[in-house]
C-alpha cells in the first residue's frame, strides 16, 4: 500500500524534504513505519530517536489526527512526524 509521510521541523531538515510517498507492507503499524523510516534515513536513528526509548522523541498524526504507535495504517493515509519541542 502507499502512504504519504510528512516531515516537520528538524525532521524535515534531516530528511531533506517536506513529504514523500512510500510503498509499505499492507497493514503495518505506526511503529513499524517509524522502523522503516529509520532504516531509510539512518540520520533519524542517530540524531533524533533516543537510544533507550526509541519512540520517546517523536509525535505522529495520521490524517490530521494525533495517533498512538500501535495504530494500524491504511492505504492512502497521510502520516506526519513532528518532534516535541520544549524551548521558550
Amino acid at each position, binding site marked *: 500500500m502507499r502512504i504519504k509521510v510528512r516531515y516537520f521541523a*528538524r525532521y*524535515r531538515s534531516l530528511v531533506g524534504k517536506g513529504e514523500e510517498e512510500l510503498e509499505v507492507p499492507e497493514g503495518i503499524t505506526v511503529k513499524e513505519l517509524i522502523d522503516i523510516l529509520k532504516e531509510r534515513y539512518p540520520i533519524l536513528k542517530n540524531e533524533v530517536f533516543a537510544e533507550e*526509548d526509541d519512540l520517546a522523541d517523536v509525535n505522529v498524526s495520521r490524517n490530521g489526527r494525533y495517533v498512538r504507535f500501535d495504530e494500524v495504517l491504511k492505504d492512502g493515509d497521510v502520516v506526519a512526524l513532528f518532534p*516535541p*519541542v520544549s524551548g521558550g
Partner: protein
Amino acid sequence: MLSERELERYDRQIMIFGEEGQEKLKNSKVAVVGVGGLGSPVAYYLAAAGIGTLLLIDEQTPELSNLNRQTLHWEEDIDRNPKPVSARWKLERFNSDIKIETFVGRLSEENIDEILKGVDVIVDCLDNFETRFLLDDYAQRNGVPLVHGAVEGTYGQVTTIVPGLTKSLHEIFPNMGKKGKKFPIIGATAGVVGSIQAMEVIKLLTGIGEPLLNKLLLVDLAYNTFDVVELR
C-alpha cells in the same frame, strides 16, 4: 467600567469584541510563566490589550545571549534586574492603566497554589517540561485554562488546554523528558508563537473566535507551514 481614556486607548480592538469584551480583559488576571523569548511578546501584547492584571513569573536574570529574542529585556538589565522586574519596568511605562505583579523564583509543588491563586488564564512560556507539567497539574486541579507554547529554531507549537474540555498536557506529550539543553532559537520565531499565545488568551477571555482546543498548531517559519493537528 471603562474610563474615557481606556475607551480611546482600546478603540480599535473594541471594534472587534465590543466594550463588553474590553471589560472582560480589564477584569482578568493572567499569569505569564517564563518571561523569556515567548514571555516577552506574550506579556507585551497582553499589556497592550489591557489585561487588568499580569502576573510575571521567572527566576532568572537576563544574559547577553538572551537578547536576540527576549525583547522585554535590554542591555541595562543584564546581570542586574530579574526578568519579571525588568519586564515590569517597561510594561508599567507602556500601559499605566494595568497592574503588573511579579514573582521572582521557581514554581514548585509547595508554592504554586499560593502564587497562582486568583489567576484566570495561565500562559506557558517555559523552556522545560518539568515545570510545564507542574502548571498542567495545577490547571487540572483548579480548572484554569492553560495556553501552551514551545519553540525551537524556526519551529513552534501552540495548543490551549481547558480542563474537562480538552486533553491535558500530560496526555498530549506523555514522553517528554526533563532535558533542558541549549536549543537554537531566533527572536522572530518566538515573536510569532508568543503572539499566537497572546491571541489565545484574548479569545478565551472575550469569547471571540475558536481557541486551539484539542488542536495543536505547528508552525515552521523556515518553510512557511502552519498545520493544525486534531488531538481528540
